[in-house]
C-alpha cells in the first residue's frame, strides 16, 4: 500500500472536517477523492501532504511513518487548483525549483527539466513567465514542477477546477495518459463525478467528513452503497419506492404489466436528449425520465400525454422506503 491513512480526525473549532478516516491506497493507482464542497476531501489530501496536521490518527506513505514529518520531508508532489506558480520565475525555473533546492548538479537539472517540459508539451515555452501561459498550460507546468522531485505520491487538489470545460476535458484525458506513462501513485480531489468516473482507477466518496464508499468507477455506479453515493454519481429520480437513474425508466404509451400510469407535464429538449417530467397520482414529486430525441419523437410525447412507466431491466436502483438507514441496493428484475 502506498498511502495508509488510519483513524484520522480533524476539527476546526466546532466544525468536524474529518471523522475517523481509514483508507489504504495501493501503489501506482490513480485515485479520486470525490465529494461535495466542504465534505473534507481537500482537508484529507492536505493531511496526506503534510500541509495540515490531523488532530489524531496516522499517515504512512510508502511504508514510512509520515504523521510527524513536515511537508518538506514527505517527498510528495502537490498541485493546487490555482496553479501556485512562482510568478517571477520562468517556466523552466519553476520546474527546476525542487531540484535546485536539492542541490542537484546543473547539467542534471537541465536534462530533467527538458525531459519534463517535453512530457507536459511545454518545451516551446521554457523561457516564458507563468503570466504568459494559459490556465491549462500553467497547470501542466505545475504538474511538471511537482513531478520533477520524483515524488513517492502525487497529490492534486481540484487540478482542473479553474479551467473552462473544454480545456478541462482535454487535460483530464491527458492526465489519464500521463499516469499510464509515469505510474506514480496519484490522488486527486474533485467534486465532478464525471471527471472521477472517467479518469480514476478507484474512487473514494467523501461526504461530511466520512468515507461513504470506496470502489472502482463501475462498482460505485452499479452498486452504490447508499442513497448519497447514488445521488452524487448521477441524477436520481423516484418511481414508487425505487430511486433510480432517469434514463433507466422505460416509457410506453399503452398499459404494460407492473407499470405506473402518469401524465407528461413537460418535455424539455436539451440537444440530443429529452427530459420528460411525468406526474404520477400517488407521488408528490414528479418522475423525471431522460430519453433520446429519436425515442421521444417515436413515442409522440408532449405535455398531457398519458404514459406508463416501468424500471428498465437491470437498472441500478435503491429502495427509498428507509431514507435514513443505508438502503440495500438491488438490481431490478424485469
Amino acid at each position: 500500500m502506498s498511502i495508509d491513512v488510519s483513524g484520522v480526525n480533524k476539527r476546526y473549532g466546532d466544525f468536524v472536517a474529518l471523522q475517523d478516516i481509514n483508507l489504504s491506497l495501493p501503489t501506482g493507482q490513480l485515485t479520486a477523492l470525490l465529494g461535495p464542497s466542504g465534505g473534507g476531501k481537500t482537508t484529507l489530501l492536505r493531511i496526506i501532504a503534510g500541509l495540515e496536521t490531523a488532530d489524531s490518527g496516522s499517515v504512512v506513505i510508502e511504508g514510512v511513518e509520515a504523521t510527524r514529518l513536515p511537508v518538506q520531508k514527505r517527498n510528495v508532489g502537490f498541485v493546487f487548483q490555482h496553479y501556485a506558480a512562482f510568478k517571477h520565475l520562468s517556466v523552466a525555473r519553476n520546474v527546476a525549483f525542487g531540484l535546485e533546492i536539492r542541490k542537484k548538479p546543473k547539467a542534471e537539472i537541465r536534462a530533467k527539466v527538458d525531459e519534463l517540459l517535453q512530457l507536459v508539451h511545454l518545451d516551446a515555452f521554457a523561457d516564458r513567465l507563468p503570466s504568459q501561459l494559459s490556465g491549462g498550460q500553467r497547470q501542466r507546468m505545475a504538474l511538471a514542477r511537482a513531478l520533477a522531485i520524483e515524488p513517492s505520491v502525487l497529490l492534486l487538489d481540484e487540478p482542473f477546477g479553474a479551467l473552462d470545460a473544454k480545456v478541462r476535458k482535454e487535460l483530464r484525458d491527458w492526465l489519464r495518459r500521463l499516469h499510464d506513462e509515469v505510474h506514480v501513485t496519484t490522488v486527486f480531489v474533485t467534486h465532478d463525478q464525471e471527471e472521477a468516473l472517467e479518469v480514476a482507477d478507484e474512487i473514494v466518496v467523501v461526504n461530511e467528513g466520512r468515507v461513504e464508499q470506496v470502489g472502482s468507477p463501475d462498482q460505485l455506479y452499479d452498486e452504490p452503497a447508499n442513497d448519497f453515493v447514488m445521488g452524487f454519481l448521477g441524477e436520481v429520480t423516484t418511481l414508487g419506492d425505487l430511486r433510480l437513474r432517469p434514463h433507466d425508466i422505460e416509457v410506453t404509451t399503452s398499459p404494460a404489466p407492473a407499470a405506473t400510469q402518469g401524465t407528461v407535464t413537460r418535455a424539455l429538449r436539451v440537444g440530443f436528449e429529452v427530459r420528460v417530467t411525468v406526474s404520477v397520482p400517488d407521488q408528490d414529486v414528479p418522475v423525471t425520465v431522460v430519453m433520446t430525441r429519436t425515442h421521444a419523437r417515436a413515442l409522440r410525447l408532449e405535455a398531457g400525454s398519458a404514459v406508463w412507466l416501468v424500471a428498465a431491466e437491470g437498472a441500478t436502483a435503491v429502495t427509498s422506503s428507509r431514507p435514513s438507514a443505508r438502503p440495500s441496493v438491488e438490481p431490478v428484475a424485469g
Partner: protein
Amino acid sequence: MTVALEARPGRSRPSLVGHNLTMASGIGLGVSMLWFSLLVLIPLAAVMVTASSGGWAEFWRSITNDQTAAAIRLTVTAAAVVTLANIVTGTAIAWVLVRDRFPGKGLLELVIDIPFALPTIVAGLVLLSLYGNDSPLGLHLANTEWSIYLAFLFVTLPFVVRMVQPVLEELDLEVEEAAASLGASRATIFRRVVLPSLAPAIAAGAALSFARAVGEYGSLVLLSGNLPFESEVTSVRILSAIENDNQAAATSIAAVLLVISLLVIVALDVLQRRVARRG
C-alpha cells in the same frame, strides 16, 4: 469614445501619426503634464538654474565649504543607515501585522501611522522631552549626531510598513505551500519566493523613507541643537543660507540633495528588479 467622435459629422480630426490617444486620454495626459510641470518640473528646474547662476566654481565652493560638506555627509549617511534599518524592521513589522494574530494588533495598526499623522514639530517636542537634557530615561542625545538618527527613524517608520503590508496581504499562501512541498525550508521560501514579490514594495518604501529623511527638519531641529560639524543637517544649513541672503548657496545644497535622492531612487529600482527576477 472613438465611435462617438466618428459619429459626429463634419468633425474629423487628422490623427497624429504614431499616436492612438482618444480625446479623453489626450486631455488626461495634458492635464497630468501641466500639473506635474507646474508643481514639480518648473520648481526643480528653477532650483537647478539658480544653483548654476554663479557658475560651476561658485557652485563647487558652496558645497565643498567644510561646514556644508559635513552637513551633507551627516544627512546622507544618517538617511542611508535609517533607510536600511527601515527595510529590515519595516518588512518585519508588516509581516507581523499580516501573518500573525495577537492581542493589541488593532492598536499597533493605528500606532504605526502616528509618525505620519503627527506634525513634525510635535514629534520634535516628544523626542526632546524623552531624550533631551531632562530625559526621564537617562538618555541624553540632545546636541549629538545620534539625535538625527533618532528623528529620522521616528518619522520614516511607516513608509516601508505601509508599502509592504498590502502586497503581503495579497500574496498567495499556496505559492509558499508549493515551495514547501518541493522541499524548501522556511528561510528559503522567504528568500526565493516571498522576497522577490515584496521587492518592489520594499524599494518604493525605502525610496520614500530616504527622501523624507533627507529633507527632514521639524522633528530634529529641537533635539539636535544644530551644532555645526556635529548635528547640523542640510535642511538647517539651507535655512541659514537663506537667512544670510545667500540664495545661491542654498540652491546649490538643494541641487546636491536632489541629485543624490534621484540616484538613490534609481539604485533602489535597479536593485529591486534584480531581486524580483532572481528567486
